[in-house]
């Protein structure tokens, strides 16, 4: 936990430095029409850096504590996070409907070890229901890819 606490605090402090840098560019003082654009973010970042320093100091004084993530926990987290990231990448290129079908099918096969019939049923059902509810009933469009273009949407 200590390492994770220290790392997070350091990352946030680095972010704070970036914010201060950009605020100085915008001006942190007073202009003819009131405080300049950088005024508010500048002071936020100053307090952020100070608070993160305090958190790092607190964490440094504590013992190592229990680990942030055990090896046994890491595996299920990654087996969820990585396919989800893959799903987002796919959505970018082939649209949400096809990507969600592939994602659900992949996850059900890999983790759930289902037979092909339930996999095909559920992974096709979800995008179809989403399409009917969002695209046709409520007129909210979703990202689409080549398949939808081929079907004429």
């Amino acid at each position, binding site marked *: 936990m200590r390492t*994770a606490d220290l790392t*997070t605090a350091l990352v*946030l402090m680095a*972010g704070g430095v*970036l*914010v201060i840098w*950009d*605020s100085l560019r*915008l001006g942190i003082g*007073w202009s003819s*029409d*009131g*405080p*300049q*654009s*950088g005024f*508010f*973010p500048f002071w*936020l*970042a100053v*307090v*952020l850096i100070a*608070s*993160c320093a*305090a*958190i790092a100091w*607190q964490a440094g004084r504590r013992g190592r504590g229990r680990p*942030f*993530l055990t090896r046994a*926990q890491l595996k*299920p*987290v990654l*087996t*969820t*996070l990585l*396919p*989800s*990231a893959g*799903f*987002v990448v796919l*959505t*970018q290129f082939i649209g*949400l409907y096809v990507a*969600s079908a592939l*994602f*659900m099918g992949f*996850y*059900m096969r890999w*983790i*759930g070890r289902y037979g092909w019939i339930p996999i095909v049923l*559920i992974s096709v059902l*979800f995008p179809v229901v*989403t399409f009917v509810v*969002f695209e046709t009933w*409520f*007129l*909210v*469009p*979703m*990202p689409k890819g080549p398949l939808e273009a081929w079907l004429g949407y």
Partner: protein
Amino acid sequence: MGWENLLLGFGIALQPHNLAVAVLGITLGTIIGVLPGLGGANGVAILLPLTFSMHPNSAIILLTSLYWGALFGGAITSILFNIPGEPWSVATTFDGYPMARQGRGGEALTAAFTSSFVGALFAVILITLFAPLLAEIALKFGPPEFFAIQLLTFSSFIGLGGGNPIKSLVSILIGFILACAGLDIVTGQLRLTFGITELMKGFDFIVAVIGLFGIGEILLSVEEGLSFRGVHARINPKVVWQTWKTLPRYYRTFIRSAFIGFWMGFKPGGATPASFMSYAFAKRFSRNPERFGKGAIEGVVAPETAAHAAGSAALLPMITLGIPGSPTAAVMLGGLIIWGLQPGPMLFQEKPDFVWGLIASMYTGNVIGVAMVLAFVPFFAAILRIPFSILTPLIVAVCAVGSYAVHDSMIDIWYMLLFGVIGYVFKKLDYPLAPLVLALVLGDLAENALRQSLIMSQGSLLILFQRPISGVISVVALLFFALPVINPYIRRARAGKPTVEVSTPHDG
């Protein structure tokens, strides 16, 4: 204030299609409340795009009904599965789950739903009475008063939120900094974009809510392994009736918890501490405190009454001041702006049908809600028996749909994933997420209020203390900020005297 306003509201809430909307909202809300990773805030956020084409009156009824449903759904998972769906349901598991293990699940569920209903009803009656008064006072507020209220909002997370106060402060600051990103509407300058065009639009808090609470929560729950184990419960009219006959005995617990809930709830982050506090009080004042934790029905009544009273009270500052008291209220506020309404005290004069329709729907929504959950518990509990390997990708995909729909923009799905990882890490390191979301929502408002106050005073922060109303609020806010520093001394001074043990995990 007049009865004709409330009647006008009921005229809207009781229209058949609005009743249908309420039933739909409660059904979806309960499902959302039962599902891991989906709760009130992100459930409302995901379904927000569906309301874009609706009339605002029906849209707000849909969202509040979702909220009631999610509150009810949280009780089901706490009692039958020992999984608190929401942070304020944690205290319900203490006695609810043991009751279910002893075969008294039906009794526990009936008690929980009835208490929720009583708590919500109590809070809604107080909202009906106080909302118009508060709105009238708020009409006289200027920028210093609004900034002072914002200070109070965030100071109460630090002073009363529990947990590590510095981490609460960091969460608030991150929210405000993220809110700064993009176009500064006052000066027209681009801030924190570093020349990247995608960053120009800034970060939408709805996407942040979906990522932080949805994806983050999924990652946390898979950590514990990939399955749920629950207790079956029978619930039938006989069990309900027998439980109802015993409940009036606990009228003291009901009244006390409802007051605690309302009092804590209209301040931000109140529902979770309210539920723990009222559990602790119920135990302390009970005739047989040794039964608590082993299946005492009062142990279910107390936290549920308080949590729902608090959850309802959180809507009071949202409708009267335009300042939300919880992440869910914040999402609703975002909805108001998208539907073209200006949140704040003027709403009572400009859109009385909207405000009173909303208030009346709190009554109808809770009546419909308690009837529906009592009738369909087995159906809702069955949702958690859907295998994890289907639920997990389903929830991730639903989150992506909701994130994209807010602005029809692909980058929001990427932000959702990013916020998911941040939410997971922050949750593990005990950084509270609710203040981050509220700061992200209120960022622009707070900054403008501060700017205008400073312009009024030509750069002096003392203006916050020189006007009577903002002065009082600012002093209280400063006191809350200082509370974590002063508290150890107060405790030392009181040492020796018995005090009520209250543990308050933050968030909520």
